[in-house]
């Protein structure tokens, strides 16, 4: 089966009519579609999904409602028609598939999927097929169940990596999905059905044996266990329903929360910044109060230099007066001595009588000193007055607050700079969350957290109830066998049915185990084949599958490699998908990969690009320049690339896909 062309009209970002032609030459079966994030690579993948199966997948592989697939700008222009047309060839026939959605006449602006009328047409070699023939015909070539293996995106790749974690919740779901694709559920349903019939037959046998005295006790016990078993089964079903609903609600909330994660982060940041801002405002306020307290005494500091200068002057004067006072004291002392000499006429030093000449000299000196003493006076008063003034001035100059005020100012300035920056950031964050109900986001996170706890609680209850139910079933089995071994039971009509259904149930159980084993072996073999081709580590001998379809890398000595790089995990996941794809489809059809090379190095990309085109009829790669450099990375398979497209942004909700060259 090969894709020939895809035409899109008003589908997601592809406004108006846009067409992609696929490469069909056998040696050039690779198509590369380049496009940066948010341009429409996944929408292209969804165009194929919706065209073939009427579904489109969003984040976490959740279905996108029909009304959201229509291009918004086209709707604003009143164009409410959306169509995907896919041409493909299979088994020598040319097919033309068209899925169209048109707004219903009575609807003004579509707000739900039902507001659109969807039609599906399929022509084979120009002959229209009837409605009920279309889906089975599509599923013959590209089965919907397997579609996840050939229409897959990077997110799916991550999902598959979780298979490698034993016992992971997501791993269990993927295992179910894989078994669904590989046909195991048919056998599981068979076992369940035969189990139901066996239960019925045993009930009938019990009723036929009810008149027997010998079976009375066992029948009573059986009735009791049966009541219990029914009750536990009911409980289990209810618990499973609740668990499913809880998980669905949680997944929905996870998606919603993730969508507004950036808003939530911005709100958290805003709250933190506002707290910081309030702290800074308070700090500035405190510093201002401290500063104003210092300012109240600052006038003294302002006068300090002048007062000090004045005090210096006064101190000089004070020193001068002190000298004068000391000088006067010495004069007074000398005059006192001279007076004593004149009075006693005896020298106070040698005790001899003073001569007349000496007496006259002393008298003359005393006269001079008395004149000097009379000329001076008042120094003591001046000295006291200056000392008092100096004391008063000293009181004024005791404070020194200038340095402390400047220090407070510096601190305030620093905080104000910080405050301005914070206020700018707060403003930006406010703009970012404008129009979003942040309280609602917080509420959703709270509910999601409660659901996580609730989920864990229900899972424990499910496990406990399941164990109790199994114990009861074992008891019921023992009683049933005991009853059917009674001689009277052998003649009972229902006994034959019990034996038959027991046999069928056993056969189904064994078949399930055997089919699972075979499928796992097949997947392991094909995935190993793919892995050997894609890995760059030649010491690895292959892959080993576990019960969950998780794959481990094995070295030459058949030992499991415990630590694997992110790149190795991606190669293992790609190998698994290739193995599953080839196990689930008999004919290797086209494979579309969205962003498959995220964490791979050049050599791995090279190996993958060389290998995958050999196992598929067409390999369509949707890549962005962050994961692959078209000119250099695609060089090894340049001769296999039959077609290259680029998705360019034409407007916020409008992308254009065009042919380009590498």
């Amino acid at each position: 089966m090969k894709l020939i062309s895809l035409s899109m009209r008003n589908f997601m970002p592809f406004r108006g009519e846009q067409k992609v032609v696929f490469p069909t030459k056998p040696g050039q079966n690779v198509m590369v579609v380049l496009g940066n994030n948010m341009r429409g690579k996944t929408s292209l993948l969804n165009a194929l999904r919706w065209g073939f199966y009427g579904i489109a997948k969003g984040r976490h592989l959740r279905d996108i409602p029909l009304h959201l697939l229509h291009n918004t700008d086209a709707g604003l222009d009143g164009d409410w028609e959306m169509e995907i047309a896919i041409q493909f060839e299979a088994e020598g026939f040319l097919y033309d598939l068209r899925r169209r959605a048109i707004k219903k006449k009575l609807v003004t602006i579509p707000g739900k999927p039902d507001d659109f009328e969807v039609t599906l047409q399929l022509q084979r070699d120009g002959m229209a097929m009837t409605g009920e023939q279309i889906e089975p015909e599509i599923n013959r070539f590209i089965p919907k169940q397997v579609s996840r293996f050939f229409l897959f995106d990077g997110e799916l790749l991550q999902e598959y990596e979780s298979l490698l974690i034993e016992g992971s919740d997501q791993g269990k779901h993927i295992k179910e999905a894989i078994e669904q694709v590989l046909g195991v559920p048919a056998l599981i349903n068979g076992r369940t059905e035969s189990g139901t019939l066996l239960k019925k037959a045993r009930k009938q046998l019990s009723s036929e044996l009810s008149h027997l005295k010998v079976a009375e006790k066992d029948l009573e016990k059986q009735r009791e266990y049966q009541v219990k078993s029914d009750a536990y089964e009911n409980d289990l079903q209810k618990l499973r329903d609740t668990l499913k609903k809880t998980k669905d609600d949680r997944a929905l909330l996870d998606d919603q929360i993730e969508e507004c994660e950036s808003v939530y982060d911005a709100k958290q940041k805003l709250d933190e910044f506002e707290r910081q801002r309030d702290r800074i405002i308070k700090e500035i306020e405190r510093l201002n109060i401290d500063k104003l307290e210092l300012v109240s005494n600052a006038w003294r500091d302002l006068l300090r230099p002048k007062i000090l200068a004045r005090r210096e002057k006064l101190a000089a004067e004070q020193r001068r007066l002190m000298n004068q006072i000391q000088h006067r004291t010495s004069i007074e002392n000398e005059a006192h001595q001279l007076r004593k000499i004149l009075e006693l006429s005896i020298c106070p030093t040698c005790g001899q009588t003073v001569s007349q000449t000496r007496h006259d000299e002393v008298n003359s000196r005393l006269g001079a000193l008395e004149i000097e003493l009379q000329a001076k006076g008042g120094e003591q008063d001046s000295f006291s007055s200056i000392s008092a003034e100096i004391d008063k001035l000293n009181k004024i100059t005791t404070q020194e607050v200038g340095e402390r005020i400047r220090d407070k100012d510096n601190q305030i300035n620093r905080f104000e700079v910080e405050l301005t920056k914070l206020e700018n950031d707060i403003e930006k964050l406010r703009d970012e969350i404008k129009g979003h109900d942040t309280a609602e986001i917080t509420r959703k996170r709270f509910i999601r957290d409660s659901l996580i706890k609730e989920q864990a609680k229900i899972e424990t209850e499910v496990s406990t109830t399941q164990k109790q139910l199994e114990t009861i079933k074992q008891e019921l089995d023992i009683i049933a066998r005991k009853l059917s071994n009674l001689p009277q039971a052998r003649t009972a009509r229902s006994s034959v049915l019990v034996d038959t259904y027991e046999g069928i149930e056993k056969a189904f159980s064994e078949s399930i185990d055997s089919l699972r084993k075979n499928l796992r072996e097949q997947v392991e073999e094909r995935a190993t084949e793919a892995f050997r081709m894609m890995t760059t580590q030649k010491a690895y001998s292959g892959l080993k599958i576990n019960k969950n379809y998780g794959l481990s890398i094995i070295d030459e000595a058949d030992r499991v490699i415990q630590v694997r790089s992110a790149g190795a995990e991606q190669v293992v996941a790609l190998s698994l998908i290739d193995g599953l794809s080839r196990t689930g489809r008999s004919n290797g059809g086209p494979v579309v990969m969205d962003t498959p090379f995220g964490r791979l190095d050049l050599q791995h990309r090279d190996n993958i690009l060389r290998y995958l085109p050999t196992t598929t009829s067409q390999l369509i790669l949707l890549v962005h320049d962050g994961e692959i450099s078209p000119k250099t990375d695609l060089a090894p398979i340049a001769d296999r690339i039959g077609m290259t497209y680029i998705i360019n942004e034409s407007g916020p909700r409008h992308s254009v896909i065009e042919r380009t060259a590498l």
Partner: protein
Amino acid sequence: MIIQEPNQIGIGEVAHVKLKKLHEDRHFAEMRDAYRFAIALALAHGVVPKDITGSRQNIYSVATVDPDQSLYTAIKALINTGDTPVYRWAERLADWGVIEMSKRADEGTLDIGQILKESETLSLE
């Protein structure tokens, strides 16, 4: 001659309005802090102020503004007040100082820390 000092002290009407604004704009915790600082500023600048023009208003008792007579001492030490009571000089100095601070505040340059630093150079002049 004994000079009678007033019990009340004030400022010119225009300066009074500006004094209130300096307080409202949180340059000073109390109006009297601004008043005292204004006197000191004028003294630091060696201003010989003229009489207050226009009407003058009593705003404080002397005991409130200068409880320990430090202002009195400072003015007396730095200015020859002659026959004029010291607190009348204080009013004139305050009037000049408030108007000067108000000018700086209007220009956004009223920085007490900076003024204190400037006063160190003023004393050398």
